């Protein structure tokens, strides 16, 4: 039986409770109350102070203090400012932003309006990937309803405050989750990052001060206003307040979306909430932070999860993807998988990311094919650090993290590949070897007849042999043999 109350739903408070296509449902749950409260009872500075005191940090991955970001944007003088919601969720296996937008779109609209009030913006933009058709549909309905109710538009709640929101669609490029690339994409330019500073808070969309926050960050804001910063900052750890939504996936029984207080341990998430590893296998690692994150070992199971502990452990919070791996997963292959993703998604603007990652991938490929050497592991480390130090944006700077963290935590597995020519998890096909045990082989010819490449030879009723140079390691002989005469090493 799993412990049932380790979660607290703040960002997901209305998901599964209300009909996302009915503004009435949202209003019945104190919807737009926080906006009303800010507009009528709080000054801009008081609202920002409340957010600062709550300790809310950006939930998109970076963990920048939200209140501080709002304050910086507010303090820039400009005739026009923008609020942008980053809904370009791109980490493999992450779907918390989509769930919030599909289950409770009004919470994001309300928070954007509050942000607009604080920083002095009358226009909000939601950058959402076109691959999220249902989220887009529900956002459109929500915006329409909010306009009809006068909760978006001119003179909101009779206070003279104007704010409206439009959607901007992304084509699903991972790099566009980086805020400067996102802004360029919205402007109709290529989705490529540019050097910071200037930060978007100073010069963002159309060169105007722009406050960019993630969906989950916004979804937490109305609760902070309604229940108070003091309520919110009692949840969590010293430097990470509130809760975080994680998308739990991989070799775990209860795949799903969980929202836990910061400071919850990995063990609680994996075993108490996640229900443990599929088929009772042994836990090996959990990957957090997506392609920019790292793999944590079982030594970290009792580490409280927060921004700083994850960074100290060689990973990062990221947007909240959490992929659980068991004893059957090969860590070299996992590193290769994430690198393949980065290769696909690199925009190609800077050389370290475009070419460096390609070279990293080639070395990993060499190792998984059984041709690696110990020098290759050193080369991986050196090249990774060069890419980290010299790439232009966050994508490149963090892209070697899966390689570095798997080497740091699972170096023995890399060594097994390059020194012993073995893949301990049995995943790297090139490193497998099928052999026929002469004493057990009856010469039934079943393997011979089933081998798709003719790698097996032998006379009827006499032991057969596998020609290793022809074998493609498909395992058909192993499955077909009725006498357990074939070994896999």
């Amino acid at each position, binding site marked *: 039986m799993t412990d049932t109350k380790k979660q607290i739903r703040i960002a997901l408070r209305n998901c*599964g409770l209300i009909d996302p296509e009915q503004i009435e449902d949202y209003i019945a749950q*104190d919807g737009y109350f926080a906006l009303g409260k800010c507009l*009528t009872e709080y000054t801009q500075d008081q609202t920002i102070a409340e957010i600062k005191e709550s300790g809310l940090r950006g939930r998109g991955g970076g963990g920048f203090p939200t209140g501080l970001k709002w304050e910086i944007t507010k303090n820039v003088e400009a005739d026009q400012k923008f609020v942008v919601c980053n809904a370009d969720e791109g980490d493999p296996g992450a779907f918390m932003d989509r769930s919030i937008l599909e289950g409770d779109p009004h919470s994001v609209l309300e928070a954007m309006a509050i942000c607009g009030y604080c920083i002095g913006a009358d226009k909000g933009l939601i950058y959402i990937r076109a691959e999220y058709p249902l989220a887009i549909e529900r956002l459109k309905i929500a915006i329409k309803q909010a306009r009809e109710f006068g909760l978006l538009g001119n003179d909101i709640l009779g206070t003279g405050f104007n704010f409206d929101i439009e959607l901007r669609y992304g084509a699903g490029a991972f790099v566009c989750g980086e805020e400067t690339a996102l802004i360029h994409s919205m402007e109709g330019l290529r989705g490529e990052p540019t050097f910071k500073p200037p930060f978007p808070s100073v010069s963002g969309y159309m060169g105007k001060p722009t406050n960019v926050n993630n969906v989950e960050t916004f979804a937490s804001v109305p609760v902070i206003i309604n229940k108070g910063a003091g309520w919110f900052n009692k949840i969590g750890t010293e430097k990470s307040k509130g809760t975080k939504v994680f998308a739990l996936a991989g070799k775990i029984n209860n795949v799903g979306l969980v929202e836990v207080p910061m400071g919850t341990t990995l063990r609680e998430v994996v075993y108490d909430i996640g229900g443990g590893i599929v088929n009772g296998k042994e836990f090996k690692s959990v990957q957090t932070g997506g392609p920019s994150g790292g793999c944590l070992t079982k030594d970290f199971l009792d580490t409280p999860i927060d921004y700083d502990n994850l960074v100290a452990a060689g990973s990062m919070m990221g947007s909240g993807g959490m992929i659980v791996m068991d004893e059957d997963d090969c860590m070299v292959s996992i590193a290769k998988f994430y690198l393949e993703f980065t290769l696909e998604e690199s925009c190609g603007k800077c050389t370290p990311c475009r070419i460096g990652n390609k070279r990293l991938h080639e070395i990993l490929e060499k190792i998984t094919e059984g041709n690696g050497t110990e020098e290759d592991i050193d080369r991986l480390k050196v090249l990774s650090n060069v890419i980290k130090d010299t790439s232009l944006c966050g994508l490149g700077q963090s892209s070697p993290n899966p390689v570095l963290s798997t080497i740091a935590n699972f170096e023995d597995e890399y060594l097994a590949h390059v020194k012993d020519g073995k893949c301990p998890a049995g995943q790297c096909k090139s490193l497998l070897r099928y052999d026929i045990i002469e004493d057990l082989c009856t010469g039934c010819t079943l393997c011979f007849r089933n081998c798709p490449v003719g790698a097996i030879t032998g006379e009827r009723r006499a032991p057969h042999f596998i020609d290793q140079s022809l074998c493609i390691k498909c395992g058909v002989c192993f499955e077909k043999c009725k006498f357990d005469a074939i070994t896999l090493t």
Partner: protein
Amino acid sequence: MSKVKSFTDLKNLKSEYHKKQIFGTPAESLVQIKVGMATCGIASGAKEIKKFLIEECEHQAIDAEIKQTGCLGYCYAEPMVEVQLPDSEPVVFGYVDKKRAKSIIENYIIQGEEIEGEIPISFKTIND
């Protein structure tokens, strides 16, 4: 809908909707059914289940309000259906296919029997 003119108007509207939606205290005869219909639920067949529940409730003359909601987070057990009987706590059922949907109506709602597939609520709300 005419525009909400002030914060006071919004507060009044809230009480009105809150009463109408009878959160937590269902009216005597009304059964409330929620079907999880985010992308994950729909992909697992929630649309069909919702349609089936509507037809079946009509067929059996059950006074029910059936609505869609977002994701409860139990992706492994989609489609999910939450049922709140009059004067009871809501109960969440997972892995709802047509057979289980039928059982929810005939055994749980009509007969008041316990049925398989109940998922324990695993979180606190902001009001707990």
